């Protein structure tokens, strides 16, 4: 496997070649409406998954410190060009788009398989994903890629130090940060706090418009869309009942007393 061969190269080279996985998601402020068995896509604003911005930023920082190539990749249809161009404008070197209508019904596992297949064709030292996507909120793809490629996973990182072939990462866990050490190649998933993503400069935006995007599809990866069928079938989408008919009072000594009484009654 290429991953293994790459390990040999790593010992002599300082460069860190990085692949960042990007997902296009509805803006987190958007009103999401159910339409039939899916959500209404029309009229939604789409953005690069916020956690993936941390991934891109971290990759660019690593490149500045160690050298190497940063490639971004997205799978799905349509509109992936937007998020790839955003990353190109931020300064990544290459963009790959696995565009295939057959991905429409794929679940996270299917997407992970497709990404793993594409990624294993190029040499890399590090894969960066978001901790989770803000739509599916699965937090699945990063772990699945590590599993499928047989390399270590460190999830929800807020700190990262790479030295040569090894790295130390701070994972966000309940109540604090856990320090984990492992070696490259590996998959890391980005948590908020890892860095402050840069805004693309105008020159970057202009350059990104002209940069070439490399397209792949399922046949070119040797994957049959039927293999991607979701093992979990959707039964329904519903709105949660979060509207509460609350009592709202103006502050005065009487209402605060009542409020305190309410708190006392529930705890």
């Amino acid at each position, binding site marked *: 496997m290429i991953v293994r061969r790459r390990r040999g190269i790593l010992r002599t080279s300082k460069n860190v070649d990085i692949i960042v996985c990007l997902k296009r998601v509805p803006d987190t402020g958007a009103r999401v409406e159910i339409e039939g068995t899916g959500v209404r896509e029309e009229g939604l604003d789409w953005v690069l998954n916020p956690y993936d911005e941390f991934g891109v930023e971290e990759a660019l920082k690593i490149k500045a410190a160690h050298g190497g190539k940063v490639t971004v990749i997205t799978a799905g249809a349509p509109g992936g060009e937007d998020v790839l161009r955003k990353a190109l404008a931020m300064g990544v070197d290459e963009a790959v788009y696995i565009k295939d209508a057959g991905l429409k019904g794929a679940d996270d596992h299917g997407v992970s398989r497709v990404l793993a297949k594409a990624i294993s064709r190029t040499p890399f030292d590090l894969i960066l994903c978001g901790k989770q996507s*803000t739509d599916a909120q699965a937090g699945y793809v990063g*772990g699945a890629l590590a599993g499928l490629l047989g390399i270590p*996973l460190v999830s929800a990182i807020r700190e990262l130090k790479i030295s040569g072939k090894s790295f130390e990462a701070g994972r966000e866990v309940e109540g604090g940060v856990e320090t984990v050490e*492992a070696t490259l190649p590996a998959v890391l998933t980005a948590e908020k706090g890892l860095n402050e993503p840069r805004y693309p400069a105008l020159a970057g935006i202009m350059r990104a418009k002209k940069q070439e995007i490399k397209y792949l599809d399922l046949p070119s990866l040797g994957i049959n869309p039927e293999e991607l069928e979701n*093992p*979990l079938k959707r039964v329904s989408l519903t*709105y*949660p009942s979060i509207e509460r008919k609350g009592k709202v009072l103006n502050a005065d000594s009487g209402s605060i007393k009542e409020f305190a009484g309410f708190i006392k009654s*529930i*705890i």
Partner: protein
Amino acid sequence: MIWVLAECKGNEPKAVTLEALGAGRLLAEPLNLPLCLILPGSNPASFARTFLRKADKIHLLEDPLLSTYANDAYKGAVTAFLKDKAVRALVVPGTSTGKDLGPLLSVSLRIPYSQNTVGIKVKEGDIHLSRRVYGGKIIETVTTADAKGGVIVSIMPRAFAEAADGKTDGTVVSAAAGLNEEALRIKVRGFVRETGQMDLTEAPVIVSGGRGVGSAEGFRLLEELAALLGGTVGASRSAVDAGWMPHTVQVGQTGRTVTPKLYLACGISGAPQHLAGMTGSKYVLAINRDPDAPIFKVADYGIVGDLHKVIPVLIEELKASGVAKVS
């Protein structure tokens, strides 16, 4: 079989394990399958007693390499243990551990994974799982396409009631973890605590502050109130971005999803990204000087006023009424 993976902190099982067992029971009973607990650790036997009445069978997965959580050791041990067993469902707590491990087990055991599960039902022998998507704006219900297929169910903390005691004790058996230290690549070096003794996802009461709190010092008042109620302090992103509180206590889409018994939002407007993290709370209360603040739409009770004036009076009232801390 319905399996539940215990969550251990250091070497001790955490309370979410009881919630996972509660969720597991919702499957085991209607499906008429045994409920089995996997208890990993370097000395799991010492904790087995806690769970005797909660599961039909308790499997001790004992190995010194499992004394603290590291995903490759846990994945190796659980995979080796389950790979030749029937798995209709494996319930894992949706903590930082479960979220790290679940997808790895999904690949190694070749079974699908369902995250953020808040509802479980069995209908005509099919497992129906309801989960939060789009920041909790929508609930998606799924079922296994293969009617007998297995599934890993990652549950939201506090979404399920803790398992009640059964009538008889379960049996306890030991299993070998069969780990080889050489094969392990993840080394856990240390842990730095950032929040107080209580983590947000475990706190029964959260007093949360936003931009309206105005300063880092302003949070002292919230801390005092939280301590009085036996809870801890949370924050909106604005308060975190202003540097008043650390990101570990941010509630919302890019922070923690919390489900305390009581969530008290102070000077928080109630942006969708904030609501994404707290609408699963049992009771939501709000203090805001703007009567039209969206937070009031999701609150059970609200006070319109300046939090700097309201909270001190509230603290006095609570003290006067001898409020007992939430256990």
